[in-house]
């Protein structure tokens, strides 16, 4: 299976370890075999080990080490935020975050809703079963 996501300038990656855990960053330069220079609108440009990154499908068009303003403009132009939040990976992360932030009362309400939904599904299933046996 060939690789599809490459480390290149402009590749968007997700930080999966460290202080900036969960942030989307842009690879702005490659330092050596193990490290990249990454940047993001809300962080200071810094180096990070590739082991701490997970590459995404999104890539933007920038020069090597752009100025912060250019970087922000390029991110806006490519509409990275919306692309990410509409991708299935991005949506999964949003759901995870929402679930983690649920209140005890919210969790109770979710449980009631699940039970209700399951009840409805079971009713329909019972109806269908009846039809096939009859």
């Amino acid at each position, binding site marked *: 299976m060939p690789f599809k996501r490459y480390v290149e300038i402009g590749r968007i990656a997700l930080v999966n370890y460290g202080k900036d855990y969960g942030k989307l960053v842009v690879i702005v330069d490659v330092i050596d075999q193990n490290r990249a220079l990454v940047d993001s609108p809300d962080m200071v440009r810094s180096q990070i080990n590739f082991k701490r990154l997970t590459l995404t499908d999104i890539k933007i068009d920038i020069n090597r080490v752009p100025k912060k303003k250019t970087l922000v403009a390029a991110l806006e132009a490519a509409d990275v935020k919306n692309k990410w939040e509409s991708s299935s990976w991005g949506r999964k992360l949003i759901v995870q975050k929402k679930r*983690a*932030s*649920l*209140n*005890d*009362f919210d969790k*109770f*309400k979710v449980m*009631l809703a699940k039970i209700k939904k399951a009840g409805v599904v079971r009713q329909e299933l019972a109806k269908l079963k009846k039809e096939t046996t009859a």
Partner: protein
Amino acid sequence: MWTVAVRYTRKRKNAVFQLGFLSNFLISPLHPPRFSGANYFPTQYSESRGPMAPKDRKPHVCRNPDLIRGVGKYSRSKMYHKRGLWAIKAKNGGAFPKHEKKAAAAAPVEKPPKFYPADDVKKPLVNKRKARPTKLRASITPGTVLIILAGRFKGKRVVFLKQLTSGLLLVTGPFKINGVPLRRVNQSYVIATSTKVDISGVNVEKFDDKYFGKKVEKKKKKGEGEFFEAEKEEKNTLPQDKKDDQKTLDAALLTSMEAVPDLKSYLGARFSLKAGMKPHELVF
């Protein structure tokens, strides 16, 4: 480090002569910084007018700015001139105005004691602590839903009413919903959720620690077996007025709880840790 000092002093030409050789050593860690007393806190009144001058003046700019922490721009003699002490002295005929000391009140004559104890009795240390109720966690406010963690009602979700003077929390089920009566509970055995119930229509003034204390019975003479049985029967029932208190309190609470959907069934259900729940990651 040293280049910083030189850059700083370049701005003030006077200072170079004053600091000169010393500038290189002044910011070393060997010399702990001392604040130049007068200009550390910008005072509202000028020092030359004295501490008795009225304080409602516009804030005074510092007369002796710091070149480096611990070193003022002006020398002692320059500061003397700036503060106008010469003018005050001149006004007062050559000497700085002095206030006369207040005549000390005549202290009562102390007689030597008649008796000295043989052994030195040690005085106990001064204890200025004041008794006050336990500090209430910021997350617990009147109307908060609490989860009781221990005791007969463990896991029950309950409404917090107020903190009593003993520090314990006054709490109610409401009784109709989950069977928890008006009860006292310790703050340590409680998780505060972020769900709040509107408690404005409820009057909790009359409940205090004495209300919940054990009733003291009159001393009876040690009787025979008959006596014992009679006592036991009386103790088991709850007095009617307590039941009425519960009812009135809960009635007010229930009306405010109707407004929030599912709140009643929420309070009726017990809390428990299920598979996959990590307490340190749970948001209550």
